[in-house]
């Protein structure tokens, strides 16, 4: 399939392009930018007038719920959601059932994902067997099976001796360890950020030191081992300040934040809205402002959806019993654009945190549209708004704090590996 995408506004943050350029695609690759290669004849010409043509989004945390949680979502439903959200590469954490701690499970996941021929799936292997924080997994075998790093998802390692050895072992082979800084004991029973809101609502709190104590431990172990660590979902101003200093010190770390935390605070819990039950918990206004600042000054590399589809029954519970998480794949672009609009941030700067930024974290191979790169594109209408409601979502999870919101930015087409993985129905009718 040869595609000619014409008259669009090409925004490629890594290449520093924000201009009207045509893009030419053949055999799954970008074969021309601005100028067609000689003798190029397209099978399909796509008119992208008034649309933005960007690299396909790279999401550093999207739960596909397979294996084990098919009642929450399936690979089919969530891969469709990824396509509808313009996400062409996604990292899935190992918190499945069983956890991704065996090469066979990873191979099966990769195989199932490949057969759907949609987004590229980059699995994270479990760092310890069953995510129990006790026994290391066969990291080399898991890497061979397709894992791009190792993680505990949201399960902290209580035993610092295990954490030390896990990082030493990962360092031996040059593997990256993805850690969500969360102390195993502090705030263990918490369901909301410690502070005035949790106190008023009578919800057990998770203190900021649950994050900072864990960060301190991680940084000390990184200093001792030199292991590469990616820090997931930093949620507090104090935590971000520690990451900033660690980066200044040139520790081998990268970091992301979840897209919900750019907009929401604990006040949004309102009268116990279980859709705002997230892990880590939503924090205060100052923390939210610090997250926005850290995105701009380079402390944070990427914004991820932290996609966690949850079935309806698991949210129809009292706040503290409701399952944490929000569906996010289809909101990632829109919520990022909303942030850009609110802060007058150039589009290219915002998209960098969804494309080139996360691509660098996983070691390249995506997030850029230079000649020779994989033809993964997200084409969207930056001026269109859409209303978040269950029937607008492809994800099986309809759990989002943004239900009922009008959000900016509508994905019109997603191209992955040179083929059209998603096309907005109304747009197809027009063209």
């Amino acid at each position, binding site marked *: 399939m040869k595609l000619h995408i014409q008259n669009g506004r090409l925004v490629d943050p890594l290449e520093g392009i924000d201009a009207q350029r045509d893009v030419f695609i053949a055999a799954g690759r970008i074969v021309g930018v601005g100028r067609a290669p000689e003798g190029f004849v397209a099978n399909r010409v796509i008119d992208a007038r008034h649309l933005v043509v960007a690299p396909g989004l790279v999401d550093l945390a999207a739960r596909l719920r397979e294996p084990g949680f098919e009642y929450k979502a399936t690979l089919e439903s969530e891969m469709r959601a990824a396509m509808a959200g313009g996400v062409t590469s996604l990292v899935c954490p190992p918190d499945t059932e069983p956890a991704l701690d065996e090469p066979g499970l990873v191979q099966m996941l990769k195989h199932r994902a490949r057969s759907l021929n949609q987004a590229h799936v980059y699995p994270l292997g479990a760092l310890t067997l069953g995510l129990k924080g006790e026994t290391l997994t066969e990291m080399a075998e898991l890497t061979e099976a397709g894992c791009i790093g190792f993680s505990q998802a949201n399960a902290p390692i209580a035993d610092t001796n295990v954490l030390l050895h896990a990082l030493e072992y990962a360092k031996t082979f040059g593997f990256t360890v993805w850690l969500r800084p969360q102390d195993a004991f502090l705030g263990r029973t918490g369901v909301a950020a410690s*502070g005035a809101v*949790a106190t008023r609502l009578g919800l057990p709190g998770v203190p900021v030191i649950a994050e900072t104590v864990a960060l301190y431990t991680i940084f000390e172990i990184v200093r001792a081992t030199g292991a590469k660590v990616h820090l997931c979902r930093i949620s507090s101003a104090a935590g971000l300040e520690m990451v900033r200093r660690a980066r200044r010190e040139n520790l081998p770390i990268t970091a992301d934040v979840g897209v919900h935390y750019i907009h929401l605070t604990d006040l949004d819990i309102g009268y116990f809205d279980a859709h705002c039950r997230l892990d880590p918990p939503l924090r205060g206004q100052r923390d939210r402002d610090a997250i926005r600042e850290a995105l701009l000054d380079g402390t944070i590399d990427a914004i991820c959806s932290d996609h966690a589809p949850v079935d309806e029954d698991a949210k129809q*519970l009292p706040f*503290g019993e409701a399952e944490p998480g929000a569906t996010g794949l289809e909101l990632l672009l829109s919520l990022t654009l909303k942030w850009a609009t609110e802060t007058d941030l150039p589009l290219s700067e915002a998209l960098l945190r969804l494309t080139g930024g996360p691509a660098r974290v996983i070691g390249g191979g995506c997030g850029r549209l230079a000649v020779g790169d994989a033809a993964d594109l997200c084409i969207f209408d930056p001026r269109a708004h859409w209303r978040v409601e269950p029937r607008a979502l492809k994800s099986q999870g309809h759990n989002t704090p943004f239900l009922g919101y009008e959000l900016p930015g509508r994905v019109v087409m997603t191209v992955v590996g040179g083929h059209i993985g998603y096309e907005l129905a109304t747009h197809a009718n027009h063209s």
Partner: protein
Amino acid sequence: MHNPQLNKNGELQHLLSIDGLNAAIVRHILDTASRFVGVSDRDVKKVPLLRGKSVFNLFFENSTRTRTTFEIAATRLSADVINLNIGASSTSKGESLLDTIDNLAAMHADMFVVRHAQSGAPYLIAKHVDHLHGPHVHVINAGDGRHAHPTQGLLDVYTIRHYKKDFTNLTVAIVGDILHSRVARSDIHALQILGVPEIRVIGPHTLLPSGLEQMGVRVFQDMAEGLKGVDVIMMLRLQSERMKGALLPSAQEFFKSYGLTPEKLSLAKPDAIVMHPGPMNRGIEIDSSVADGNQSVILPQVTFGIAIRMAVMSILAGN
């Protein structure tokens, strides 16, 4: 944000928390209660205001005392009362909270009195019945997690009004386990709404939640300092599971620092009243001589509690 316990006209649809009520509603409840106080002294302790209505006591967490006071209140209003100890029935069979509610609503419940270990559970139930069963079904929060115990807060301010008349010149101290106390939270809101200028909370750092000052209270660790010149002392119950462990070393040590003794009571104003939501732990949070002393209003609180619950039910039923 829409306050889920009020209807479109700003009237009480459910009683979920004192937080978010205005002074007019609170005073209306207190005034209505004062008319019911006399009912309990009559030979025939019944008024027909809730005749033909069904009140379901849904206690997902056990509490004989609170359940009984609601039961007495409903009976004195001539309602039919159905007591369900849910902990021992449906949820243990795997039925979801909202399925339980739907089943009971189908039996034509008019009012649910709900106690639940999770903060916010009555909000979920209220939202659900509003959506499915319309405005004729009411929910009363009889205590949810650490969040609220609004009828206790109301009976506490009723008691204070009975003895002190004016709220706007009072200093009130709340002492003990604030962290886990829904009573403390409801008391703080009720006192604020009625214009109490100084609310103090007293306890060790392990039993004080963070951000407490933002609720508009002064926080003390030293009980002697905190009790100086107060008009009202509200003691809280210390749950037995908190008495030994990482929050407190022992009940004895707690009593030494935060138990209300005659010596500590003497630091308050001479006419200060002493309150406790019950059940009391004598010798842990309060000395027997204080609990039974002439400044104690602990038993009148219980009596007023019936009248408050009658008032709330009667107002919700549209009287």
